[in-house]
């Protein structure tokens, strides 16, 4: 009874502490604008990586359309706030709903395909979305939309990230999540055991798309401007690198990958070509030597932390990783 209470309360306390400390730092101006931007990028990338991991890592389907869903979310959100004048909460809801619908429309037919075919089909869909946005004058065409009010603050970002993590984690450990894992391990066997594979593949896809939509809305309302170009498949590749490097099928790994690669890309901002060369080498090396990513399928959990501490390790500092 007591353990269960600790299990629930400890992460909540940690989250509140992190939220409070960083929020205080931002309010007092201790965390400069430069670090804030990176913090927001990390948060948005965590949402993207975790939700892509739901499709790639947990259900085992390679999707290269994440940028497309993000674009759907971002544009829908901006239409809701700027053209309809509704508050951000509506934008988030509408953006996620629109991305989820797009995920459903795309997922239902294409998830009959496997492996490489699915990868290319999703990549194609992402590109179609981009081309349509570029030619849709109502949404600014190739110039995109600028002057979006910055309504996303630390509170919005932090709780979006936490909520995403909690929801995805709970989904994975639910009956439905385990059905998704079964699909990944062996689709045929899962089908034989009575798992409705199509249903679960589409479900994972829709949830992943909704997450990408959320990231899109947050992105649009933090960075003032959205361009169709920003949501090309290079962005999908970026997220894929995070997932692959961090760990396929590990939420902790996805967070780790998002943090690492966002920091890396910030450090290498001045030499973007070099950044991509490094990404490429990382992708190849990880694929060959650690095909399940750095974290593998491991998760950072309280039990694990407890064991470390009992062994006398000093793992306290790493507590807010997952």
């Amino acid at each position, binding site marked *: 009874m007591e353990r269960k209470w600790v299990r629930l309360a400890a992460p909540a306390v940690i989250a509140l502490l992190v939220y409070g400390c960083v929020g205080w730092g931002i309010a007092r101006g201790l965390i400069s604008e430069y670090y804030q931007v990176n913090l927001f990028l990390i948060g948005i990338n965590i949402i993207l990586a975790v939700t892509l991991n739901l499709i790639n890592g947990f259900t085992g389907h390679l999707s290269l359309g994440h940028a497309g869903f993000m674009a759907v979310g971002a544009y829908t959100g901006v239409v809701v706030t700027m053209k309809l004048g509704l508050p951000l909460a509506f934008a988030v809801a509408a953006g996620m709903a629109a991305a989820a619908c797009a995920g459903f429309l795309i997922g239902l037919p294409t998830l009959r*395909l496997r492996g490489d075919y699915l990868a290319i089909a999703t990549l194609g869909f992402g590109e179609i979305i981009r081309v349509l946005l570029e030619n849709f004058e109502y949404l600014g065409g190739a110039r995109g939309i600028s002057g979006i009010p910055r309504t996303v603050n630390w509170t919005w970002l932090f709780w979006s990230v936490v909520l995403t993590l909690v929801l995805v984690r709970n989904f994975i450990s639910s009956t439905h999540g385990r059905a998704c894992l079964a699909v990944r391990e062996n689709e045929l066997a899962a089908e034989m055991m009575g798992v409705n594979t199509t249903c679960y593949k589409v479900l994972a896809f829709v949830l992943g798309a909704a997450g990408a939509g959320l990231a899109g809305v947050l992105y649009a309302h933090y960075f003032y401007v959205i361009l169709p170009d920003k949501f090309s498949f290079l962005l999908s590749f970026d997220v894929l690198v995070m997932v692959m490097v961090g760990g396929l099928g590990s939420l902790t790994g996805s967070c780790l990958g998002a943090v690492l690669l966002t920091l890396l890309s910030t450090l290498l901002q001045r030499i973007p070509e070099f950044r991509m060369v490094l990404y490429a080498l990382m992708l190849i090396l*990880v694929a060959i030597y650690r095909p399940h990513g750095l974290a593998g399928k491991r998760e950072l959990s309280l039990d694990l932390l407890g064991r470390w501490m009992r062994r006398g390790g000093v793992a306290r500092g790493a507590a807010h990783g997952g």
Partner: protein
Amino acid sequence: MQELLQQLVNGLSLGSIYALIAVGYTMVYGVIQLINFAHGDVLMVGAYVGLAAALAGFGLVPSLLLAMLACALLGVAIERVAYRPLRHASRLAALTSAIGVSLFLEYGMMAALTPRTRSYPPLLPDRIYSWGGLRITSKDLLILGTTLVLVLVLQYIIYRTQTGKAMRAVSFDREAAQLMGVNVNSTIGATFALGSALAAAAGMLVGVYFNAVYPLMGLMPGLKAFVAAVLGGIGSVPGAMLGGLLLGMTEALVSGYGGSMYRDAVAFGILIFILLVRPTGLLGTGLQEKA
């Protein structure tokens, strides 16, 4: 009517370039069942090598051969470093590695040579032939001729040589081929060499046709050629040719009738349509899609 024919002629040039790239895709796919994401980037490297040779004073044909040779080596090296260690790994790992190679070539080239667009020196006289109101340029003829010659050579290699026989055997059933004494590794290497050489030729043709060589030039042709390969039936060489020509003509028609902004979207639309209604493509065999 004449307008339509003119668009079809334009589409024919574009289509034969796609066909040339798609054949490389399809061959590699046939033997290792992996989409070689880096194929389009090998094309880009080929265009650069050809450009370097042309700037060094070589003529059209020597430059072309040099580019093909360099890319054949590059293709073998890519297979050795990035694909061979993953031959028995999961598909996701192999595909990730392929994406890695693609990004590496693109941005490596960008880091080495800046993203600047370069153009070919005049390699052939710019003539326009009019025939019954149809205009055909010397570039069109160059592309059609090169494609035709290369495809004939390829057909010869595939159907008349020992290596070609081995390639067909490996693509049919790798284990059985190995049991029958086929050296699978060297056959796969040969396939990569051939496919990459064709990509290099296509790269030079793209460079000459659009008069622009830049590090990301392989991206769209690469993706489009994949669409062409799927359209024709992936794994089938004649299918890839047919798919390439059809795609090129469709694109020419779409842009000719005012939809040039939607050209890329139409190509991907075709891909998704084909994957949904006939995943094996127009000329594909009825083999079950691999798991």
